[in-house]
């Protein structure tokens, strides 16, 4: 076999693809040029078009790859040039290789050109994030191409090849996608069923191959295609995680979770439940990925940030190749422990959880894995200690005397700081009914609620004590750790919320109200100077007050501003966001799916501002309040009372 016919065949194939190739390059350049111009002319539209660009690249690559493959196989047949090709002194296998290779080179050239052009036009930051996203379209493209190749052997017409290939690919991908999603959400799903499904698919492919082979294949390259198809199925089954994590660019305007973290320096973004968590530096506009896919950052009511807001607790689901859930390998004694069962029930982990807990440093991206335990010990995080960045965990060990439960605290780097050993002279109780774990010592009691992640430590002497539901709403320690709010029972048996200094025993405690108060909400000011409290007054009307623990004075806030404002204060679901200097407070009212935000000054509560249909994000480092309305992120500067469109990278300069 000479080389000339092969070379001629290559040039022939390339000439047929060149027009489409040139069109694709022009389209890519046009889009990047246009978006760059728009970004320069209208900088407030910073986010506009990111979705469009990603969608454009995704669809173009997909359409182009299947088009080049299908075109390579159908054009000769449609044109009646098959006889000419067959007459060439080239083996059919080489014809197949040339056609597939040229189509692959053309597609790869467009992909590389897209990335290079994006980099040249200053989209390097976006591209670094887009690359892992674009791996998914690439893999998707691979599946589509394999299916199109498979179909191209049996069908002759362009449209039939195209549509049948696309449909076959869609069926395969969606089947795996749905299966993995199901597993991700239902870890107790019996794992053997996935093996049965996989086995059926492989057996089906083998059967199809057998039928076709018994009928006799016309050429060697058709056998190659079939082998490729079966191999594609195997590869697909090993890379399903990527199809299941069909996440998008972490666009703040459409993200599911959007929170200000790390003292207002960063914006936490998670597009959807199974997407990785990203952190956007407000000052520089750089986005970093801080978690893997399948990281659950909020369960219960809120995301679980440490006191400083720098560290975050997440649940990380684990899969081998994205397909086989990796269960915790606990021994049976631990599995049957009531405490383990209670926690697993609270967190909906199932009997063999494929989840582990991680502490993420949002500033550096370092992750500390809590799952590094032996088979005879299990550690479950219960929550962050208020006042510092320590993580409280429940450790359950298997001992010859039975299971031993200990409370321990970890630093965010994973160092064990302190462990409270349970011993014979301590009474130790796990209270499952109230969803809390109570440890009673001679003089101390600690209640930890694993569901709501609250922690209470109080000295009660020898008195028995029952956990109180409303206690869960109380932030215990002040940010500086000098003050605490706790419950005391007076002579008449009535329980009171009391604010008391933790270090100065001479300082008298300050009564914040009785426990009969409905839905009390307390929030410490960032500088620990005072407590913002929403409670009922004598006439059982909710009021907003500020308590100063030093002077022990009470300042009513905004009680008679307007009926609308009073209604917000009376709302059962209340959200406060206090500015860094404690001068401004934003309250959210949630009513019938429409949220409104109220902002007012502590010094002059008569003046306030209302944003209807807005979603609170938080106070940024530049001391502006960010909120999301529709598809825009806006920033409110309380000093100038000005609202403006917000986009990252100019936070400090604009403020």
């Amino acid at each position, binding site marked *: 076999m000479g080389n000339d016919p092969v070379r001629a065949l290559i040039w022939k194939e390339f000439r*047929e693809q060149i027009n489409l190739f040139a069109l694709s390059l022009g389209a890519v350049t046009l889009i990047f040029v246009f978006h760059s111009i728009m970004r320069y002319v209208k900088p407030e539209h910073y986010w506009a078009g990111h979705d469009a660009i990603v*969608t454009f690249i995704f669809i173009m690559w997909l359409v182009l790859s299947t088009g080049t493959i299908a075109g390579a196989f159908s054009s000769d047949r449609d044109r009646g040039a098959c006889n000419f090709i067959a007459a060439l002194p080239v083996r059919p296998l080489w014809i197949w290789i040339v056609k597939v290779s040229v189509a692959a080179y053309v597609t790869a050239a467009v992909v590389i050109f897209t990335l290079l052009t994006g980099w040249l036009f200053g989209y390097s930051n976006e591209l670094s994030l887009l690359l892992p996203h674009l791996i998914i379209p690439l893999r998707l493209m691979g599946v589509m191409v394999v299916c199109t190749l498979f179909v191209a052997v049996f069908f002759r017409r362009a449209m039939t090849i195209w549509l049948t290939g696309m449909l076959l690919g869609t*069926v395969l991908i969606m089947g795996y996608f749905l299966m993995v999603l199901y597993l991700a959400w239902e870890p107790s799903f019996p794992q053997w069923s996935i093996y049965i499904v996989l086995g059926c698919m492989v057996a089906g492919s083998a059967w199809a191959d057998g039928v076709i082979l018994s009928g006799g294949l016309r050429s060697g390259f058709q056998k190659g295609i079939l082998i490729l198809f079966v191999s594609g199925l195997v590869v697909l089954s090993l890379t399903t995680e990527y199809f299941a994590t069909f996440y998008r660019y972490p666009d703040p305007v459409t993200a599911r979770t959007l929170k200000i973290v790390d003292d207002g320096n960063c914006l936490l973004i998670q597009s959807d439940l199974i997407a990785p968590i990203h952190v956007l530096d407000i000052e520089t506009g750089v986005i970093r990925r801080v978690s893997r896919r399948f990281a659950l950052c909020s369960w219960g009511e809120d995301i679980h940030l440490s006191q400083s807001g720098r560290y975050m607790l997440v649940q990380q689901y684990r899969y081998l190749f994205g397909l086989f859930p990796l269960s915790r390998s606990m021994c049976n004694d631990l599995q049957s422990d009531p405490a383990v069962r209670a926690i697993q029930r609270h967190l909906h982990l199932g009997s063999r959880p494929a989840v582990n807990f991680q502490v993420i440093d949002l500033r550096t991206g370092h992750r500390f894995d809590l799952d590094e335990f032996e088979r005879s010990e299990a550690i479950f995080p219960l929550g962050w200690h208020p006042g510092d960045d320590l993580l409280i965990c429940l450790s359950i060990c298997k001992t010859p005397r039975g299971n031993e439960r200990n409370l321990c605290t970890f630093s965010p780097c994973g160092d064990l700081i302190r462990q409270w050993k349970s011993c014979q002279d301590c009474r130790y109780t796990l209270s499952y009914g109230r969803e809390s774990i109570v440890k009673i010592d001679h003089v101390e009691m600690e209640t930890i609620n694993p569901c709501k992640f609250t922690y209470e430590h109080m000295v009660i002497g020898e008195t028995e004590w029952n956990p109180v539901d409303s206690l869960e709403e109380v932030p215990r320690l002040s940010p500086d750790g000098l003050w605490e709010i706790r419950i005391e029972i007076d002579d008449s048996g009535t329980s009171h919320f009391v604010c008391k200094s933790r270090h100065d025993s001479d300082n008298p405690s300050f009564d914040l109200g009785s426990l009969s108060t409905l839905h009390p909400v307390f929030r410490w000011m960032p500088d620990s100077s005072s407590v913002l409290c929403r409670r009922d007054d004598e006439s059982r009307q909710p009021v907003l007050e500020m308590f100063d623990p030093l002077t022990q004075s009470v300042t009513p806030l905004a009680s008679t501003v307007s009926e609308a404002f009073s209604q917000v204060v009376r709302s059962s679901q209340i959200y406060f966001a206090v500015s860094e200097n404690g001068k401004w407070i934003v309250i959210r009212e949630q009513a019938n799916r429409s949220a409104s935000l109220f902002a007012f000054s502590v010094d002059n509560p008569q003046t306030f501002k209302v944003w209807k249909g807005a979603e609170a994000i938080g106070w940024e480092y530049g001391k502006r309040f960010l909120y999301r309305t529709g598809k825009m992120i806006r920033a409110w500067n309380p000093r100038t009372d000005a609202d403006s469109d917000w986009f990252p990278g100019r936070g400090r300069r604009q403020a």
Partner: protein
Amino acid sequence: MKMWIMVRREIVVPGALAAVVIYLITAMSSHLPLLQPKSMQSFIMTMLYWMTLSITAFLGAVSSAGDRENNSWNFNRSLPVTMERIWTERTMTAFIMTVLLMFGFYGWDPIRIIEYSPGLFLTVFAFSNLCGLGLRTVIHGAVAGLIVTIVITSTAYILLEDNASISLILNGIHVMAGLAGLISSFICCRWVE
């Protein structure tokens, strides 16, 4: 009649396969608690939308590139009619089929018409037709038509994303671009070799 034969032999196999796929996914949806019914409905509609769009692209490309690919372009030229008339007859036949296809997709659901831009069909059809004149093969014409349509849509989206009535304006842009593509194709058909 020729168009009908072409469409029949092209569409029957993938159409039957599509029906099976949609049936399977619909049947499977009731067993999947993780996907809300609305999400599943949206997914099926998106799949249907892409299929309809692909078929539209092929109809547009077949009407202009089909004869060239089958080497019957010279036969067309030897007919005692103008190229414009041949173009009009072939393209309008394909366009009528596209409209029927669109009716099949939209039904009488006004929400579906708002959600899935009907103007996009005209744009895809027109530019597949135009690209079919320039690119020799049907499949390359259809792919090029789809890529040009994506470029137009992305450009309009970047420009108008913050506009409240973006879907309405996008529809208008698609209709205008589609008409421009059809007129260009009509003008260019006589010069195509």
